[in-house]
């Protein structure tokens, strides 16, 4: 599904190298988690994969089902099936949540040569999906993320994911700023989307999210590389001992 090889990335504006030869393969249908201390490059990885400005890839490759992601515009990556749930979802005053989602869904369909969804079908679909995430009609009408609480913003990200049905989902610290109940709700939303044809890359600081979204593989990232890979037990180890032991071990 997702294949990243020897990825080197620096900031465009300054001589700061952030990713230093990152290798990562996520197979179809699997959930991979990435943990790592602050500043290890986790969020940069998610931004580079989704096509945000400000980063320069100096070496390496990233492919989604054999397609070179790095050559594509952000919208083309989305149409190819990549989705990033933002750590800090952006507020867009003046654009209604529904209008936004319908425009996005139809733009992706159009890019893939599919028919646009009718207004009635869209409404039916979004109502059903919103209900599962306890998003009410009022929230759907409001401008995108404007005045949403932290929990509402994250639920809204998952709603977008559920509507757009991407094949590769990246969750960037989706648990940050969530209370336990909100985290469960978000995890349920993610788990409902687990499927043999869909993969997840869950970036998190904490084990607790992984109690609810059970990963198949856990990676530890430090200083721009994956330094250790293991099963779910690796996350527990981090929870108990912090990163120091692992970093010392691989140093």
């Amino acid at each position, binding site marked *: 599904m997702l294949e990243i090889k020897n990825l080197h990335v620096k900031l465009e504006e300054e001589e700061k190298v952030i990713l230093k030869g990152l290798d990562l393969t996520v197979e179809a249908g699997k959930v991979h988690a990435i943990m790592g201390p602050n500043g290890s490059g986790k969020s940069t990885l998610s931004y580079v994969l*989704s*096509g*945000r*400005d400000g980063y320069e890839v100096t070496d390496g490759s990233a492919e989604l089902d054999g397609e070179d992601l790095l050559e594509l*515009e*952000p*919208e083309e*990556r*989305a*149409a190819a099936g990549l989705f*990033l749930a*933002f750590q800090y*979802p*952006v*507020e*867009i*005053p*003046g*654009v209604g949540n529904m*209008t*936004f989602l319908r*425009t*996005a*869904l139809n*733009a*992706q369909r159009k*890019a893939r040569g599919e028919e646009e969804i009718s207004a009635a079908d869209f409404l039916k679909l979004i109502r059903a999906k919103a209900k599962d995430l306890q998003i009410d009609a009022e929230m759907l009408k409001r*401008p*995108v993320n404007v005045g949403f609480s932290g929990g509402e913003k994250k639920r809204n990200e998952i709603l*977008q994911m559920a509507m*757009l049905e991407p094949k590769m989902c990246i969750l960037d610290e989706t648990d940050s700023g969530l209370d336990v109940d909100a985290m469960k709700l978000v995890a349920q939303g993610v788990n409902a989307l687990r499927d043999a044809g869909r993969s997840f890359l869950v970036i998190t600081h904490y084990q607790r999210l992984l109690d609810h979204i059970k990963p198949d593989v856990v990676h530890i990232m430090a200083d721009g590389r994956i330094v250790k890979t293991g099963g779910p037990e690796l996350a527990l180890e981090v929870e108990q001992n912090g990163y120091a032991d692992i970093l010392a071990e691989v140093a």
Partner: protein
Amino acid sequence: MSALLQAKRDAAESRLAGLRLPEGGSAWAKAAREDALSRLRLSGLPGRRDEYWKYTDPTTLVTADAPGAAVFDGSDESPVFDGIDWVELVFVDGVFDADASDDPALAGVEIERLSTAMQADIHWARDLYGVLEARGQVPVERPLATLNTACATDGVVIRATGKAAKPVNLIYLHQDDASDAILHHVIKVESGAELTVLEKGPAAARFNKVMEVDVADGGTFHHVRTQGRDHERRAVTHVFARLGTESVFKSFTLTANGVLTRNEVVIELTGDDAVAHVAGAALGDGDFHHDDTVFITHDAERCESRQVFKKVLRNGATGVFQGKILVKPGAQKTDGYQISQSLLLDDDSQFLAKPELEIYADDVVCSHGSTSGAIDEEGLYYLRSRGIPEGPATDLLTLAFLAEAIDEIEDEALAEDIRGRLESWLSRRRG
């Protein structure tokens, strides 16, 4: 006399020499024109060095000969306000076309052609024609409006005594490359009456229009106009409104393109608890120059006024906003609001804003703000990351920027029509 004033007076004489002054009419009409003529000869026409014209060069609006403007073919798009049931009155290059117009009686209000009204003794028209315009000359002179009162050859007078059955839609067609039109409308909304006036079209190569609106106690007046895609046209328009107790006045203007447009709105709130909202959305490209000049005077208690102006500018376009709220002594509990904002899509475009508050009452709330900004890059990335390509994503953010102005239109069907128009214009220019 200063050389500057002399030059302005010379400009007025030169302009008048190139015009055929209207003749005939009843005594009041003649008197109104003569009064305007003498005021114009004193003030002269605006020049480049007038403070009130600091950001907009009036030269092509005052010259004796109108600069030509190629007729624009807009037949590839659906008419504005399509599907809204109105009574349409058509003007071709500034001349009323009765054959192309609907029967005015269908609007359920009194409508007369200006030239007819000026032959007769219609007291309410007599009491307004040139009267609100003259009141609007203080404290700032607006000589192009005075010229209009002196020389207007056509227009309509409308009086609503109850709720109008349909909106009156004034349609201004432009068919002659060299047309130079001066129209003057007078509108009286009687106590408790309701009227909506729509306006659309370029009108002429050069267009000078005055609309005087008197809204009596408890009356309601809505105004929505579009100044379309015709690029070479030039226009100076004035709306002079006087509002009585508990009356409502709401005006919205959508402008796209136009090498020179100056829209002045002058409102006097003379009765307590009156409400005046003026809003505008403008899209400009290249050698576009668009100027909104608004002057609102609060002269009664507990009145509310709002000015909401938004401009989207690119490829070197210029936007101007001069907006003033004057609160007179005794106009307590005034609620005044003014916002002017521009979205600059590149570094070549500019927005010049001069917000002013002048307050002589001590118990008022007045706020104003003005901003210029670029497209929000974070928002753009977010939209694109969800699959919306850069062009449509930019349009979505542009519409969102304009939304506050469009939301000022009370009639949802009209607002929706304006939104649809904007969307089609935006997607068209993406090509």
